[in-house]
């Protein structure tokens, strides 16, 4: 069978999926060496990432660099991210955990710690804005992917699964704006695990 255009798309998708799945093995090794965190610690970690996401979205919208259409979609996603934060904060109160607080300076340091080198302060184009948001959505996916394997409380676990689905949808929507007409860029992998 020869390789036509459709076949190239499928190959690209399969190869990308294989690369994504390969990341599962190092994660397994790292996880085995640490003590199991409490649900409270897991929620704190996830909430810190969600706060980073919200700060990033706010910074992008404040930049004024987005087209009207892109801005509308980004605003709707920010609304959902704030709902994620609200649910996590409510859960943390119930667990008696210490509420984290992330300011903009800490957010930039947090990005660097996750090897995301986009600047919150010096965004220059819509392209840079969307790249930042796609990168933080990857972090959010990764946070939930990590949390799902560790959470004990079934209600928290369910919420984490549902939120992970939402982050994946956000990633796809943003990638679709960044790369219009290139579906292989907006839904590239059969397995979504985000970035650590």
């Amino acid at each position: 069978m020869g390789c036509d255009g459709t076949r190239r798309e499928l190959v690209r998708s399969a190869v990308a999926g294989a690369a994504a799945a390969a990341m599962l093995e190092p994660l397994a090794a790292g996880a085995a060496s640490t003590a199991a965190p409490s649900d409270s610690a897991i929620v704190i970690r996830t909430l810190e990432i969600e706060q980073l996401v919200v700060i990033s979205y706010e910074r992008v919208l404040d930049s004024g660099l987005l087209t009207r259409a892109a801005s509308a979609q980004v605003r709707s996603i920010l609304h959902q991210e704030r709902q994620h934060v609200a649910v996590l904060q409510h859960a943390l109160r119930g667990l008696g955990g210490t509420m984290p607080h992330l300011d903009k300076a800490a957010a930039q340091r947090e990005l660097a710690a996750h090897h995301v080198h986009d600047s919150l302060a010096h965004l220059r184009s819509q392209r840079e804005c969307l790249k930042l948001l796609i990168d933080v959505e990857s972090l959010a996916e990764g946070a939930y992917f990590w949390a799902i394997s560790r959470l004990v409380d079934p209600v928290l676990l369910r919420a984490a699964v549902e939120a992970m689905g939402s982050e994946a949808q956000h990633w796809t929507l943003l990638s679709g704006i960044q790369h219009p007409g290139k579906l292989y860029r907006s839904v590239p992998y059969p397995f979504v695990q985000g970035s650590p």
Partner: protein
Amino acid sequence: MTPLSEAESHSRRTLLAAAAGGALAIAGGVTACSGSKPLRVKVRSGVTVQSGDISILGGLLDLEQHTIAAYTAGIPLLASRYAKASKQFLSQELAHAQALTDLIRKAGGKPQKPHSSYALGHPTSDRQVLALVRDLESAQLAAYVDSIPLLTPGRLRSAVAAIFANDAQHLAVLRQQLGQNPIPAAFVTGR
């Protein structure tokens, strides 16, 4: 969905069998073309699967197989601007099914084969085909949300969640193609 008459079932089965064979041939060729370690080996690596997970994973596999059948039968009916996405999603659903199959085998279970036919109704337009696969993707999402907390704690849950998240992406694109809000809710439940 409307059950098919016997004659319709036979012709539909013929279409599904031919199309599914074509879909699998493409998927098999994709593995050969990629030249990488089999995807399924990487997905199941490091994941603990117990016998109690078998029936849950089997239920999810059943839904994936149903969705695969719908994409396979529906793609020939789609205009090219919609078919491209569905073809990509079909390849990913096949990867999901294979991953679930591997997990079931890892637990010592025997994965079920796809049904010989599925009740897919009589879609004739782009919109009807897209609505069909959208509804099946939604049903999958609902099942994943209910099932993941029932699985053995640990990496199995996140491995299955990785499939769920990809299906959530499919749903967003399909809704967009149907002119609907791609992300109507902050928490994806499939309902």
